[in-house]
Structures are given as C-alpha cells and as structure tokens.
C-alpha cells in the first residue's frame, strides 16, 4: 500500500504485469475512489465551464462525457478532467485526486460573475472501474441498463447489483469498460458483486501500478507527468482538446494560440527503446551531438510489447535529431511512436 494524495492505495494486488495483462485480455477491477467529483450547477454553468476548460462544452448533450484540460490564462494546466452533462444547467466533473483542493479554489475564483454553484462531492462518491474486453459482459450480468447501446464517452443512471450508479462508458486503460460512480457506503457491496460476477470471465483486481502502465501503453497523459503547470495541452499533443473557435474565448486561448505558432515549442513525444531496461522519469534526453535537450516524463516496461516505453519532453526542432538516453553507461536510441503502443479495442 502507498500513500497517494492522502489515500492508502495498493500499487499491486498480485503482480503489476499480470494485472495489466488481465485487463488487456479479460478484465480488471480498479478502485479509483480517490478521484474527485464536483457538481457544477446553475443557469450559468454551461457558459462558466466553456470559459474554464479548453474543449467545447457546448458540444455536450445530456448523457455525454467530454475530456478536457483546464488551463490558466498562461496555458499551463491546472488539471485535466471529465465533464458530464446530466441535464441542462447540471454538470458533474471528475478531477484528479491530488488536485482537488487546487481545482476547487481555482474554479471558485473563476466563477465570479457566473450564475453557478460549485459543490465538492468527492467524499460522497466512490468510483469503481471495470476495464477490459469482458467488461460489458460482466457489468451487464448485474444491470438492466442496455449496455450494448451505451456508447463510448456516454453515461446513464442505473443500478448495478442493486446499487444506484452513474454508469459511464469511459476509462483510463485504452480498453472498453465502465466507470461506476456510486455512494461511498455502497462500495464494498458493489465491489464484491463485481468480483463474484467477474470471476468466471477472468476479472482480476488491478492496482495503481497496472493503471499507470495501461494508460502509458494507451498513450494517455497523466497529470504531473505529460501535463502540468508548465506543460500545456499543445505541448502534450492534445491539440484536439483545444477548441480555438469557441466564440467567447476561454482561459488560455491566447497563450495556447501563440504557442501553437511557435516552431520551437516544446513537445511531448512517446518512445520505445527495443530493450527491457526501463527509462525512468527525469532521465536526461540527448540529441545526436550529445547535447542535453529534454527530459523523460514517464517510463515503464510495456507488459504487452516486452520493451521499455515512455514519454519525454523535447523542443520540436530536436525531434528528428537522433534522440537517445543513457542508462548506466549504455546509450539507447529513442524510437518515436505515435501512441497507442498497442492495438486498442475501445468501444466506439
């Protein structure tokens, strides 16, 4: 168990690699109750959120989920989050556990002038994620909700094993799956029901370690690594989440537009090395001439590929210039890859 943002959480239950493989081949159950939840409601909620985040909240409709960075005016990222539209004027956010206090302070400050209420619901909700190709079969066995017609990045209210849930077809593994928001008191009953229902289908408990290697294999950013106060969504390769054409502008729009025009801007790249030695975060990245040009942000061994994968930040101009790292005196070329590193079978 490790301390994570004040939560005592398992890095692994059995083996990070075995849990990872179970999610890719069958299913995994993650307890991600540490994530923060926030209700944003009121006549001004939509306009407020559209100013707050870089993606287009006007594209939502009830039952739709949106991923977005939340930037400061200088383009740095306060957090990345999911926006759920429950109904007009009622939205729900899922935010990173380590950022809850910072996010709430930021949102309340930004809410000035908007007709909106912001309520921290983080302690009211527990969150269980069932992820993997067998996730639909497992969750369907416990619910009357019609999961085959619940599309990726959509959600609905329903009961799972008799527990009232927000059933969200989302996840952080690159596999099909569900995230089930429910009252904290119901978490033990729901997790036991899911484990029982999942056992015949190979469902395994999966910890923080597998969650990290799965998200990296899928090429998803992790706040504090590929996104942070100093690394913008443009740098992180998340330009698709920044909707410059939103008519009323948004926090960071000008800085991010300027950054996009800068040919020498920093860029997050994903790499594999062809070797099993893990390239650890903070490892220096050098170019062909041996000059230090960047830093590794995330690194692990891909359990599926059997080789080291990771991400690094380098100037755009250095990307084609023989990037390599040194591990214990031996040089390894970074082979750049457009993620995902493995073929993913997300629901569409």
């Amino acid at each position, binding site marked *: 168990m490790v301390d994570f943002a004040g939560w005592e959480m398992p890095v692994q239950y059995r083996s*990070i690699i075995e849990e990872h493989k179970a999610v890719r081949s069958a299913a995994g159950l993650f307890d991600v109750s540490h994530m923060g939840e926030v209700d944003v409601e009121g006549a001004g909620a939509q306009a407020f959120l559209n100013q707050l985040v870089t993606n287009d909240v006007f594209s939502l409709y009830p039952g739709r989920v949106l991923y977005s960075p939340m930037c400061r005016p200088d383009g740095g990222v306060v957090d990345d989050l999911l926006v759920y539209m429950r109904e007009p004027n009622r939205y729900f956010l899922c935010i990173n556990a380590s950022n809850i206090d910072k996010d709430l302070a930021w949102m309340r400050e930004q809410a000035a002038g908007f007709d909106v209420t912001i309520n921290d619901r983080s302690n009211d909700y527990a969150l269980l994620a069932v992820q993997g190709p067998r996730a639909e079969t497992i969750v369907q066995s416990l619910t009357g909700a019609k999961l085959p017609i619940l599309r990726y990045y959509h959600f609905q209210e329903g009961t799972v094993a008799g527990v009232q849930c927000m059933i969200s077809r989302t996840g952080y593994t690159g596999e099909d799956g569900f995230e089930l928001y429910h009252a904290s008191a119901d978490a033990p009953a729901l997790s036991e029901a899911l484990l029982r229902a999942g056992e015949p289908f190979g469902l395994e408990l999966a910890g923080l370690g597998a969650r990290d*290697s799965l998200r990296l294999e899928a090429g998803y950013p992790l706040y504090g690594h590929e996104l942070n106060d100093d690394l913008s969504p443009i740098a992180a390769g998340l330009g698709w989440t920044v909707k410059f054409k939103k008519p009323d502008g948004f926090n960071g729009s000008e800085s991010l537009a300027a950054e996009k025009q800068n040919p020498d801007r920093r860029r997050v790249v994903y790499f594999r090395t062809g070797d*099993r030695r893990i390239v650890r975060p903070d490892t220096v990245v050098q170019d062909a001439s041996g000059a230090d040009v960047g830093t590794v942000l995330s690194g692990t061994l891909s359990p599926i590929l059997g080789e080291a994968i990771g991400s690094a930040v380098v100037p755009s101009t250095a990307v084609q210039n023989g990037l390599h790292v040194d591990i214990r005196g031996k040089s390894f070329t970074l082979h750049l890859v457009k993620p995902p590193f493995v073929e993913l079978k997300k629901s569409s």
Partner: protein
Amino acid sequence: MSEIPADRRYAKSHEWVLNSEDGVVTVGISDYAQESLGDITYVEVPGVGDTLSAGDVFGVVESVKAASDLYAPVAGEVVAVNEALDAAPETVNQSPYGDGWIMKLKVSDPTEIDALLDDAAYAAEVA
C-alpha cells in the same frame, strides 16, 4: 513471511550465497528482496571472468518500481552467469533460490562466507 532457507548465507544487502565444496559459490537475491521489488523486468549480470571485491556492484535488478544495485557478498572471479534471466527475468520472482540464481563466483577467501549472516540472523534483519 518470506522464505529463508537454512542451507546458505545472506548479506545485509539481500544477496544470498550458496557454498558448494569446490570453492565456487552461487549468488542470488532473497525471497524478501524479490518480493519487495515486485515484478522483475530486467537483470543486468556481470561478465564471466570479471574479478569482484566484496561490496562491489556486480549487477542491477530492475523492477517496474525501481532499479537496485547488486553487491558482491564475497570477493572472487565470476565463472558463470545465468543467461536465461535475459529472456525471463521473472524467474527471479518465481524461484529466487533456485532457477533465479544470478552468478557463480570462484571465491578468493572462503572465510568471507562465514562472516555473512546465517538464516536466523538474516531473518532478524528483515523482520
């Protein structure tokens, strides 16, 4: 509770030494060490013929969590390394005292072996 066989000696840095009578010892890492490291992803072994002093770094065991140096528990010349670990480093997790051995050393001074911890002393060390 990790397994600590009584047939061998241990270093505080969690390597074990199994003495056979011909002056060659087998070296690996303890069950406690492999359990603490978690999934082992890579083992860097020394070169056959390398000469090591007691306390020298002779290799690295990497897991998803961390990379840890391996220290020679006794001085000697490397006479064999476990090449199977290259393709299957998880063998160290599965069989730390058997197939997961790391190297064999021709010891220079057998009294160094006696100076290492016995199973009871090592058990106290990791308790």
